[in-house]
């Protein structure tokens, strides 16, 4: 008898749960950690009645997830602008955006145009910009006052106090530190392969100096904070977060140029709730909301006018790190052509396997 | 200290002096002393929980005595671990190694003594022959019968030529027929190899059949150490009298004493005369009588005088071949007596409820000072 009651209870629980899910509209968001701050999610839910379910990941896994389902399972994704066109051409995981549904007036026009151009496949664009930032160095000035370029990552002075990701930004940065321009060789697979071999040698030689190849942003920040790591390659906003607590640690734009990235909004090919996706895009790019995001994550957005609404301390980060000439010096990622990924993959495997 | 046949020519293989073992508050073995001479078959007989296994494990070295000295061939064994003692133990369940075959089991101890390969093979063959298992070397343990396992276990120990072989009720797991057979075999084997055996058991027939000497153990103490014959005919304590062989216990009160012959009156009103064998009794003291079933004669010839005679009512006939008994009660009593029933057809007429006369001789009963007899 007790068992029967239990079974009935369980079934009814499932039913209620199922009904609950069916009645409320949801937005399945595939994004980066920090890109869906709680305050904004709650505000959006209040405004539209749509529940946001966010899954946090990175560029590579985002592509793999959408490729596995051929663009299903998520309503909105946030890949970097350089990782869209070649992936789209090959795997067809996104759908063209209907720009008439997007309040383009609130987006910085130059950035919108650049992203539209870079994400074009067969004459149709697939993304709008959301936020941008750079990769460069986070430096503890107390221990490494002279570190001002990627070459510091391979400097014997900092043996055991260096950390970076074993991911493609590091390969690109290493190439720049060698005085080369990897972006210029994007079109020439052979030349790019030769450059990557050089990069590989540099990374293998520098391997004894590395404390570890970081995989988790929070863990890296913890290592910087505890003084275990002096020089790291990482995103600017991480450095700024640390600077707030410890003025000796700051983000440094490398001499050979910080790497500029733009993360976008793109709608997967088999998205269920496209309307909600457009609503979220317009909501997040609204200046007052974009400013909230920037204040929390220390990351600039493509929202026109949002910068005026951000905290002075956050604005100060940009001015301190990027004087006029450094802004011009930023190397913006061009779209990655196909085939480069497997060259880079092998390079990274070899670096990791070397002793 | 019990002294056994004081033959000074024989070497003492095992000497146990005032050995005591306490487990916290419980005293398992209480100041036990005995000597075993070379080549003897010595048994320790007692009910389960009497401390005999603890005693054996102390001799083997698995347990250290709380007090007292164990010496083997004059050497004090205190602090000597089991694998360094010149004794071997045959376990209750034999503990043959199932992962090895018969030859490997037997070779195990020899290998530990670093005996050469050829020697091991020779010794293994010899010992297998000796225990009657020639050609069994490559059999697996689980292919052997109970009796064969028994012999392998004995061979495994004997091949090491221990000074003393300890046996922990090794026949307990066998069925009755095989047990009777193994008793005889074990005795013969011991006589042949001449190794000193110390055997513990709760089965009095095993102890009586095989042993040169038997120690009766109760509650951690030795009650009596003697030859099997003496134990049976002259038990020195009521416990021995009752534990070794069947016995009818009967309590009474001393009413008269002339020389060694005492007159005892039972609660049922029977008056018996019994030889005290020199034991002293206070006047009017309680007396415990022990009468063996075979000491009681059924319908004795009237010509035999000096018999204690009384009448019983037959309750049941317990037929068991040569070991048949009568179950009977004295008149006006609930007390049950077991009476030997010789199978010579002379008493075939006896039926339950019959009233018959029983007689026994005053010399064939045993008496001990007892609790106050009921009058």
């Amino acid at each position: 008898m007790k068992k029967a009651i239990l079974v009935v209870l369980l079934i009814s629980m499932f039913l209620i749960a199922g009904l609950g899910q069916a009645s409320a509209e949801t937005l399945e968001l595939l994004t980066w950690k920090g890109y869906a701050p709680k305050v904004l999610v709650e505000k959006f839910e209040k405004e539209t009645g749509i529940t946001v379910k966010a899954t946090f990941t990175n560029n590579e896994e985002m592509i793999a997830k959408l490729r596995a389902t051929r663009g299903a399972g998520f309503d909105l994704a946030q890949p970097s602008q350089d990782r869209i066109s070649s992936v789209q051409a090959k795997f067809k995981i996104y759908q063209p955006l209907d720009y008439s549904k997007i309040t383009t007036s609130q987006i910085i026009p130059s950035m919108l145009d650049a992203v539209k151009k870079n994400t074009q496949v067969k004459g149709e664009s697939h993304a709008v910009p959301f936020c941008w930032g750079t990769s460069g160095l986070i430096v503890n000035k107390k221990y490494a006052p002279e570190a001002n370029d990627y070459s510091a990552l391979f400097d014997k002075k900092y043996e055991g106090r260096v950390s970076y990701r074993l991911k493609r930004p590091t390969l690109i940065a290493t190439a720049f530190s060698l005085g080369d321009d990897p972006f210029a060789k994007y079109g020439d697979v052979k030349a790019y392969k030769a450059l990557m071999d050089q990069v590989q040698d540099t990374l293998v030689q520098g391997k004894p100096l590395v404390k570890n190849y970081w995989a988790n942003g929070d863990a890296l920040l913890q290592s910087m904070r505890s003084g275990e790591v002096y020089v790291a390659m990482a995103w600017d906003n991480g450095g700024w977060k640390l600077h707030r607590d410890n003025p000796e640690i700051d983000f440094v734009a490398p001499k050979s140029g910080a790497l500029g990235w733009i993360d976008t909004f793109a709608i997967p090919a088999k998205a269920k709730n496209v309307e909600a996706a457009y609503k979220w895009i317009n909501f997040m790019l609204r200046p007052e909301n974009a400013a909230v995001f920037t204040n929390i994550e220390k990351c600039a957005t493509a929202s026109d006018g949002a910068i005026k609404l951000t905290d002075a301390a956050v604005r100060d980060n940009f001015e301190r790190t990027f004087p006029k000439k450094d802004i011009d010096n930023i190397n913006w990622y061009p779209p990655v052509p196909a085939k480069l990924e497997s060259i880079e993959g092998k390079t990274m495997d070899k670096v990791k396997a070397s002793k | 200290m019990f002294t056994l046949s004081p033959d000074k020519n024989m070497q003492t293989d095992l000497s146990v002096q005032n050995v005591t073992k306490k487990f916290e508050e419980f005293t398992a073995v209480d100041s036990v002393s005995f000597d075993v001479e070379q080549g003897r078959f010595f048994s320790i007989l007692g009910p389960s929980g009497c401390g005999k296994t603890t005693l054996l494990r102390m001799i083997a070295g698995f347990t250290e005595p709380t007090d007292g000295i164990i010496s083997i061939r004059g050497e004090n064994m205190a602090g000597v671990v089991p694998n360094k003692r010149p004794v071997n133990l045959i376990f209750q369940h034999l503990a043959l190694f199932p992962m090895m075959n018969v030859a490997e089991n037997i070779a195990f101890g020899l290998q530990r003594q670093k005996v050469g390969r050829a020697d091991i093979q020779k010794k293994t063959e010899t010992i297998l022959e000796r225990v009657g298992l020639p050609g069994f070397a490559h059999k697996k343990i689980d292919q052997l019968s109970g009796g064969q396992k028994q012999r392998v276990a004995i061979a495994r120990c004997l091949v090491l030529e221990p000074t003393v072989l300890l046996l922990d009720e090794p026949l307990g797991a066998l069925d009755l027929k095989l047990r009777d057979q193994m008793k005889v075999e074990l005795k013969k084997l011991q006589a042949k190899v001449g190794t000193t055996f110390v055997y513990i058991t709760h089965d009095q027939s095993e102890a009586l059949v095989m042993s040169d000497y038997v120690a009766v153990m109760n509650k951690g103490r030795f009650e009596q150490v003697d030859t099997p014959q003496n134990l049976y005919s002259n038990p020195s304590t009521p416990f021995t009298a009752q534990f070794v062989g069947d016995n009818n216990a009967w309590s009474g009160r001393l009413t008269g004493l002339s020389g060694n012959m005492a007159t005892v009156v039972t609660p049922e009103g029977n008056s018996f005369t019994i030889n005290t064998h020199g034991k002293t009794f206070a006047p009017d003291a309680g007396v415990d009588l022990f009468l063996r079933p075979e000491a009681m004669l059924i319908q004795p010839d009237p010509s035999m005088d000096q018999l204690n005679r009384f009448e019983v009512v037959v309750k049941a006939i317990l037929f068991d071949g040569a070991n048949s008994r009568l179950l009977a009660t004295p008149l006006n009593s609930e007390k049950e007596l077991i009476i030997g029933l010789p199978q010579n057809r002379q008493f075939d007429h006896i039926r339950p409820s019959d009233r018959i006369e029983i007689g026994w001789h005053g010399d064939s009963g045993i008496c001990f000072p007892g609790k106050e007899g009921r009058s």
Partner: protein
Amino acid sequence: MKNHGRWYLFFFLTPILLWLFLMILLPHMDLLIMSFRAEDDFGEMVWSFANYLNFFEEPIYWATFARTALYSILVTVLTFIIALPVSFYITHVVAPKFSGFLMLLLLLPFWVSELVRVYGWMILLRESGVINHFLVQMGILDKPVEMLYNDATMILGLVYTSMLFMVVPLISVLESLDKSLIEAAYDLGANMWTILVRIIIPHSMPGIVSGSIVVFMLTLGNYLTPNLMGGKNSLWFTEQIYNQFIASFNWNQGSAFGFLLLILSSLIIWAGLKLTGQKLSKVVK
């Protein structure tokens, strides 16, 4: 009556067969097909052994596999060496009323996810971690040292993660070991080492083999622990599969690696069984 029996059989068998087919066989078939497809010089997908040949032609791939396999064997051996005394203690030394409690203690770490366990180790071992703090406080070390990100730490983590899978089968075989066998061996003149080698290990062989297979496979297939605790030098074969799928977008190569892992690890286990003269059917029983 006979028809009834058959009906029952179908009733209970169908879900299992469906599960096997839909959840296990079908995806694997897909991966298998994928592993035999590769791009030719013109960028067209064609049938090819290239993905498998890549493994043998590119030293880094098979070297990584060899390294992973050797370390997995080492982890298995170390786990066994630690698990045997632990299991013996639980089954034969400690009072039976405590053995359940000790088993519970062994199980306890497995109530949290592997990720949490690994982060726990990282908090303990990192340069600014708990152990370093105490060693410096007690004056044993002048300054903290980095204990993470080397092979020894990675093996420590893998052994820790594998412990239970060795202890459980060992406990179940050791429970059936008659204590008097050990005493008999001791009585016949054996020392502790001989008892271990001649009595305890032969008796425990089925448990040792099944525990070793499980630990070996789990270690070989582990991804988190080598990656997080091993740091920069710990390329594990599973990571290479992950990289093929995620970083290089080469699912075909990744599937081929997956099947190679399956085949090669099965071969290693088969060789191990042959070498120790064990039979899988006996172990499974």
